[in-house]
């Protein structure tokens, strides 16, 4: 088992911080390794969200996860946004900042969706250059997540896993490896998820994501609205064997249940972690 090249800590098990859970977290102080915050929810507020976040960040390690960095967009980089991201990272002491391998808009607009990049040499070179600039500006490791995708471009030069691996190596950035996203994209595009996992450079992986999804029959949507399905747990086990132990986070963003339910779900990841460690020993 390897560690990541930056020596970023394995924070254990974490959950995404959601407003409906603020009161429970502050009153019950659950035993949890870390919280991941949705970056954009805290950038332009001086009210209750920031007040709650400050209290939670005092008690727990936090990491930041954004959706608007748009690293593959052909629009100019938004440095005003990045300055706010950097300031929030300093305020919360976030150990790393993550976003997605995608683009979200062009021509000054934002669709607020994680739109797919073509896996071409052009797109790779473009994204790598932007990641280098962004990473320098943020002055901390930038960690990028493999996306869930619902289409494939005909002109792709490489498979998604090759694009992700080369992007991380050439831009010298970290990876947030979302196991559910691999399952979703593999189902949608008909490839082997294990081949994807085996191709990921282990020393660049800083964090894992797990989540539930919605199977529409013809395709799967990454809804973060349910429990993690068994095949994704199996892939998680394979990922731990291949990559190693990393900070592991459960995302639950729609039909959000009480905190205890989310907590119980991420504790299952703890069982998988212990089992894989025992097997290695």
């Amino acid at each position, binding site marked *: 088992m390897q560690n990541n090249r930056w020596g970023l800590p394995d924070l254990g098990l974490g959950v995404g911080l959601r407003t409906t859970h603020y009161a429970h977290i502050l009153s019950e102080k659950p035993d949890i390794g870390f919280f991941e915050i949705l970056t954009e*929810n805290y950038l332009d507020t001086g009210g*209750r969200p920031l007040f709650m976040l400050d209290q939670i960040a005092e008690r727990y390690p936090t990491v930041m996860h954004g959706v608007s960095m748009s690293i593959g967009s052909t629009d100019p980089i938004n440095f005003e*946004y990045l300055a706010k991201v950097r300031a929030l990272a300093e305020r919360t002491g976030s150990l790393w900042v993550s976003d997605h391998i995608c683009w979200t808009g062009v021509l000054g607009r*934002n669709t*607020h969706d994680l739109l797919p990049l073509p896996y071409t040499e052009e797109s790779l070179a473009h994204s790598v250059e932007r990641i280098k600039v962004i990473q320098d500006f943020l002055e901390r490791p930038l960690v990028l997540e493999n996306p869930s995708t619902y289409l494939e*471009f*005909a002109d792709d030069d490489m498979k998604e896993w090759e694009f992700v691996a080369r992007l991380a190596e050439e831009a010298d950035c970290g990876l947030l490896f979302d196991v559910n996203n691999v399952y979703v994209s593999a189902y949608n595009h008909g490839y082997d998820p294990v081949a994807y996992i085996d191709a990921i450079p282990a020393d660049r992986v800083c964090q894992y994501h797990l989540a539930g999804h919605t199977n529409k029959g013809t395709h799967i949507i990454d809804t973060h609205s349910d429990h993690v399905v068994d095949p994704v747990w199996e892939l998680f086990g394979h990922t731990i064997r291949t990559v190693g132990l990393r900070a592991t986070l459960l995302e639950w963003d729609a039909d959000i249940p009480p905190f205890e339910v989310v907590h119980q779900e991420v504790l299952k990841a703890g069982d998988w972690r212990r089992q894989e460690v025992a097997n290695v020993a």
Partner: protein
Amino acid sequence: MSLDRPELARLQHWMQEVVAHPGTIEEAIESDGAEQKIPSERLSDVVLPSHSMTSAERVGVYHGMYLMRMEEALETDYPVIRYHLGDRQFSHLVREYVQRYPSTSYTLNRLGDHLPQFFLDEPQWHDAAFLHDLARLELAMTEVFDEEESPVLGSEELEAVPPDAWEEARLRPIPALRLLAFKHAVIPNLVAYHEDRPSPGPRRRATWVVLYRRDYSVLRLELSRAEYDLLKAIVEGAPLGEALATAAASKSQRQQAKVFRWFRTWISEGLFTAIES
């Protein structure tokens, strides 16, 4: 790269055009804006079909999620308008609104900033003037929710002002304060929403309200016209002597007592952050 292969920028411009189009996925792919970038008959040369979906259906997944996401964001900020309009009309409103005012920010929290203006732009919208007022109320509530936190003016600071300095003293409002005047009775609609009662709908009645935040909750005080005028003068920086003299112009003891009562309420509710004498 061959001429047939769309470069990254063209591909992204095309995809955004399709995803954000208000019609069906077929209409989106065949729209003028999309056709100029990638002709619809070439779709399968750009997006592969899957074992179970056509190229158009696959792009349609993103297209379908766009308006849903916009609607979720706007119903968070405008629950009373949604309650008044009902689901179907609200969806129609969102579709029209994001065509005119698409998101240009990294955050969806500010997507609805132009909704009051939208109802001025679109006076043919049923009850547009009422909806304009309701949108102003709900927008102001989101602004107050997100404003910077600030200390509240305490009684010690007030008592420390020398008697001869009161005339020229100015009160600085907390940032999380909005003073609003409406042509319609908007508050009964807000109350009906919170109490899950039928929306009373549009009724013309001049209404004055101050929204403010205390202990991270958004609160409101309904005001009379005279209260509104006095508070507005103070908030805009008028010296206290001048503002109070105008408000208590009749100089009757009753009027002066009333002004004193208003003033005491505003101080105790924490509407001010400092006094500058």
